[in-house]
């Protein structure tokens, strides 16, 4: 894991993925560009959190799949670098960081204005693993 910092307000997922896969921020697509983020945010009257998952996560999973990787979701904590999504206390949104076990080992937000207590006590973890038929691709991906 090599820490990478987010460059846009909605770029925490992109930067966390880059950190785990040991890629530069430019090598990971902007899965949720700021323009699109703003449109959904406005259209859904600030209830954007419920509109994001299907669109956003599908883009992430397609990108991983094309590299021989897939996501396993869990609330269990394993000693493996993973995407840890923290839910805000008011359930108005979420923030993705890099986790290892139950710890946050890298927060891609360069200038955080929040406190750990701003998040609800639980997190959603996503583990990146190789897909069965793509083992030949894995050696070409940094970090594996």
């Amino acid at each position: 894991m090599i820490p990478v910092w987010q460059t846009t307000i909605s770029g925490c997922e992109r930067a966390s993925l880059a950190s785990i896969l040991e890629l530069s921020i430019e090598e990971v697509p902007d899965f949720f560009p700021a323009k699109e983020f703003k449109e959904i945010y406005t259209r859904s009257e600030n209830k954007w959190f419920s509109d994001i998952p299907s669109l956003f996560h599908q883009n992430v999973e397609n990108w991983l799949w094309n590299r021989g990787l897939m996501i396993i979701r869990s609330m269990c904590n394993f000693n493996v670098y993973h995407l840890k999504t923290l839910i805000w206390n008011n359930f108005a949104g979420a923030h993705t960081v890099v986790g290892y076990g139950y710890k946050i080992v890298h927060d891609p937000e360069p200038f955080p204005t929040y406190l750990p207590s701003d998040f609800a006590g639980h997190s959603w973890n996503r583990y990146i693993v190789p897909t069965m038929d793509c083992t030949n691709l894995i050696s070409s991906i940094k970090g594996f």
Partner: protein
Amino acid sequence: MDTKDKLVKDSNKIQIHGDHYEVFDDLLGPLYVEDYDDNRFDIHVGPVFNKIGDLATFNISVEESPEYGIWIGSEETDTNIVLSKATFDAIVDFVNYKFKIKNPKD
């Protein structure tokens, strides 16, 4: 020999014992696997130490669903327990053995 059978043959972590499977954890040794149906299996984990130092034994349930894809859940919902990479690798081996992983585009 299909892909699944080949994976069992090649894996040193999955073993068939009559009516059940075992996956091997480098730290904990063999873990008992109950293979339920097409979309779910359970792994009995433990004993492991939780954050306050108690020994715990519990079940991990692994499901494949249209909503969440592959989901690892714990019956105990004890998020204080941190499981090893060896346990995770054993679970991933069995996930690859059991589920025919689908392209998310499909």
